[in-house]
């Protein structure tokens, strides 16, 4: 479980890590502990999967990648095999089942629009599912990934 220092550390590092030669020492100073303690905690939180990514969170669009949200209507008995196929593409980063007739919702990223179209065509072709909504973002109003862990 998370102790008080883990929570304080997560609250701070979610917002930003200092871009300096010794970032963990700087965090230690701000949190009133040692550099070794910070490194050990981050190691543990990363191993436990609580921290999914440490450091650079990239903006795919700024690197020229194209992406879209896709929704598929998948029959219940087909869900397992379709999920395996969809998830097999490295550019598919998120995939959720949702309680709607369009029940499989995933995001795909690719290096170009052509490659993106190819992936979508391959998924449609290999699953035989024609009912697919392609919903690329046309405006991004917010992407926030900070969660307040409180101080309990």
């Amino acid at each position, binding site marked *: 479980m998370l102790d008080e220092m883990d929570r304080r550390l997560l609250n701070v590092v979610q917002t930003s890590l200092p871009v300096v*030669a010794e970032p963990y020492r700087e965090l230690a100073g701000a949190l009133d502990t040692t550099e070794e303690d910070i490194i050990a905690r981050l190691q543990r939180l990363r191993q436990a999967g609580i921290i999914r990514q440490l450091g650079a969170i990239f903006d795919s669009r700024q690197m020229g990648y194209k992406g879209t949200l896709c*929704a598929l209507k998948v029959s219940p008995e087909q869900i397992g095999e379709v999920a395996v196929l969809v998830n097999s593409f490295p550019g598919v*980063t998120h995939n959720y*089942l949702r309680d709607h007739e369009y029940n499989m919702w995933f995001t795909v990223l690719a290096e170009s629009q052509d490659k993106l179209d190819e992936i979508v065509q391959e998924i449609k072709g290999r699953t035989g599912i024609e009912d697919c909504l392609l919903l690329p973002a046309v405006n991004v109003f917010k992407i926030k990934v900070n*969660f307040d862990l409180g101080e309990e």
Partner: protein
Amino acid sequence: MLTKVEKQLVRELQEGLPLVSRPFLAIAEKLNISEEEVLVRVKEFIERGIIRRFGAAVRHQDIGYVANAMVVWPVPEEKARETGQVMASFPEVTHCYQRPRVRGWPYTLFTVLHGQKEEQCREIAARLSMATGITGYRVLFSTAELKKSSMKYFLEEK
């Protein structure tokens, strides 16, 4: 577009910042450049928006935010920006996007809410509706997470 050395730096950074006293030096040694150059380039990535955030991405389920609702809103094109900005101002809204209107799908504004319970998500959606006047929305809860991973960029050019 990104230069060869920039792509190399992206490939190193996406493996996660090394947990050593001087992580940028560790990266620098792999790329055969100086620690100072890595620091300068990372700051430049942040300025250019290539790095959206330099920090930690946390699995929200592990810290109590279990319910994940995608709420979809039928918003007329001309009201999309204003409505999107109002919704984005709510702290409970973690993502807010406008998407094109497609056949068979009247919803054009998408918000993702994270709450401790489903009930809380429904209540937030009701407040968003009140604040914007947009009705006829749908709340789509996730029933299973099939995949959640960090994207790996520029892998095939190694």
